[in-house]
């Protein structure tokens, strides 16, 4: 049955340099791990490139790529595998695209447990299957110990943007409403809780999720949406500052309308972090004309991934392109980009 004398030892085996050398060991790993779990006809054809037809009347194509280097690799609510699928699917979705296919490039560290690799690949395969976006081509490299941190995964996605959908921050106008799809900071706090030196216990799980069905529903109902973006690294503040900078507007938000879980707020207090800077992996920010905002909000709330959606502010005239916030306290402050790296403060 098997073309190989002995199956890959996914229980106790480790990645070694032969798994990336182009020889039999690599072919076997590809067969028994990647092809088996990603399991789709395009990948099965085992060409170096994936060949596929576009859907009829597809409109424009969209392509996005994302490198994943998360530490720890496994965290509450997910792992680097499903994250690498969701991240790229979401990048395609935020362009207004319907994601079609993914590619995956693995850089593995010599000595990495094959059991962990299998767990990651299965998680990727499940995420891709659930999203309906197959992984149709890929690449594996192995580097010496210490050159990467376990495993790095780069995924690329292609999709199609239906005619009539034009998204971009340059289309934002003063008066437009800013909508957020749910609680902020869950992913970042879930990751931080497992970092060595910080470890704390919470029930918080990463919000990692593929958002393309949500964006499709939103764009179907409200094609006038100006811009979509997912607040990943740099958090909500980064997206709002990008929108402000790229649109030439200012943005004014209300702190009391921004959904946040008690545990996330508490963890941020303990570590001295601003939740507006904390990463998300399953949330999006949408901007639409004011007259469509309530309708868009209703569509979002009807979707399981945006049940907690809220209108959090508006675009305003501001030659400085600042993001400002009315605080829960009743004062006003700026919302700036994250400075440097996000690290716990003592003061």
């Amino acid at each position, binding site marked *: 049955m098997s073309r190989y004398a002995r199956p890959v030892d996914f229980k106790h085996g480790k990645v070694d340099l032969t798994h990336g050398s182009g020889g039999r060991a690599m072919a076997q790993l590809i067969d028994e791990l990647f092809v088996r779990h990603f399991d789709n006809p395009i990948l099965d054809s085992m060409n170096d490139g994936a060949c596929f037809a576009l859907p009829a009347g597809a409109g424009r194509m969209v392509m996005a790529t994302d490198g994943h280097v998360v530490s720890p690799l496994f965290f509450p609510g997910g792992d680097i595998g499903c994250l690498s699928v969701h991240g790229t699917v979401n990048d395609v979705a935020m362009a207004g695209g319907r994601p079609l296919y993914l590619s995956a490039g693995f850089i593995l560290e010599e000595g990495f447990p094959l059991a962990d690799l299998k767990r990651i690949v299965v998680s990727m395969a499940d995420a891709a299957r659930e999203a309906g976006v197959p992984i149709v081509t890929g690449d594996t490299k192995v580097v010496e110990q210490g050159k990467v941190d376990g495993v790095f995964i780069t995924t690329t996605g292609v999709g199609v943007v239906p005619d009539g959908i034009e998204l971009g921050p340059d289309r934002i106008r003063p008066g437009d409403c800013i909508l957020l799809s749910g609680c902020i900071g869950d992913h970042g706090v879930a990751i931080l809780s497992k970092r060595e*030196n910080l470890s704390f216990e919470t029930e918080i799980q990463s919000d990692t999720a593929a958002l393309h069905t949500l964006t499709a529903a939103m764009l179907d109902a409200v094609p006038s949406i100006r811009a979509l973006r997912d607040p990943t690294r740099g958090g909500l503040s980064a997206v709002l500052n990008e929108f402000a900078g790229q649109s030439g507007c200012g943005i004014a938000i209300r702190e009391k309308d921004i959904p946040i879980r008690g545990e996330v707020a*508490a963890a941020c207090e303990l570590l001295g972090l601003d939740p507006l800077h904390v990463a998300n992996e399953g949330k999006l920010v949408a901007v639409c004309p004011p007259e469509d905002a309530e309708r868009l909000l209703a569509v979002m709330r009807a979707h399981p991934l945006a049940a907690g959606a809220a209108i959090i502010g508006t675009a305003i005239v501001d030659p400085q392109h600042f993001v400002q916030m009315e605080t829960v306290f*009743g004062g*006003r402050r700026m919302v*700036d980009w994250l*400075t440097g*790296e996000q690290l*716990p*403060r003592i003061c």
Partner: protein
Amino acid sequence: MKYIDEFRDGELARGIAATIAAEVQPARRYRLMEFCGGHTHAISRYGLLDLLPPAVRMIHGPGCPVCVLPIGRIDSAIELAREHGVILCTYADTLRVPASGGLSLTRAKAQGADIRMVYSCDDALRIAQENPAREVVFFAIGFETTTPPTAAIIRQAAALDVPNFSVFCNHVLTPAAMVHIMESEGDPDAVALDGFVGPAHVSTVIGSQPYEAFAAHYHRPVVISGFEPLDVMQSILMLVRQINAGRAEVENQFTRAVSREGNRKAQALVAEIFELREAFDWRGLGEVPRSALQIRPAFARFDAERRYGIGYRQVADPKACECAAILRGHKHPADCKVFGTVCTPDHPIGACMVSSEGACAAYYTYGRFNVVVKEAGVA
């Protein structure tokens, strides 16, 4: 969050703000220095200035241990990691502080120095125990709040006899810096101050008693204040009332966490491990006598300064910076030519831009909107 959220109630704040507005007297000025970066942070983050009447002016003090750490001390920390090859453990706050030659701990790390961020000094001792073949130095900074944990870890290292662990001590003292600010009143760069919002968690450790001589000698009211925005509002009202009545007392708004005596256990431990330094250089303020601590000779083997023969070399602050004038309340961050142009939180030049608690960084991050609005004359 119990004991946090209740102290952030905007409705109550507006009520207190109305009381402050009603009680300020038109003929008087209320120039209040909040010594601590924690208060600066709260004022900026919650937009407290929007609630205060124009007669009340808040002046940001030098109470941020990261901001006042002089360049020479960061240089020494980098030297420990690079020349002596130690694992340098540090709180994340110090990582981006500018050192000489365009360096910082972050950049030194990128160039290969073994510099590790810790959340607690406990982690530094653990790293030493896990790496017996390496020398591990904890780069200790902070005011009286952060000193007792460092004392505890030195005592523990002695008890466990960990030979490869030492501490590079940069702990500084609050009352000495407050005295220094008042002593520089004759200085043209200094602004007359009418009262002080006193430290919160520093006072949890040292108590309110150490400020009594200060208030009496300089005849300035001091109100020890919590770091939550309602605490700050209430403290401002208490200061306004003292100033109106011509009183100069130490009052304690933060009674839930500060007593007159403070935390005796922590004080005793600090006294066991540390002794006064003759003088310490503060970024922005210069040399301040008896304003810092060093490790006692009995614990010399845990003192990185002795162990590695580190001498302090004073490095001048960048010329363009108005830090000294800003730290003394004479100038506003927006008065500084390099503010927001050359000097930003991503590329800090001066002390006040270094930590998110610094006056300039707080303005840049949270209040720049107000500065610009003021300048543009927009309502």
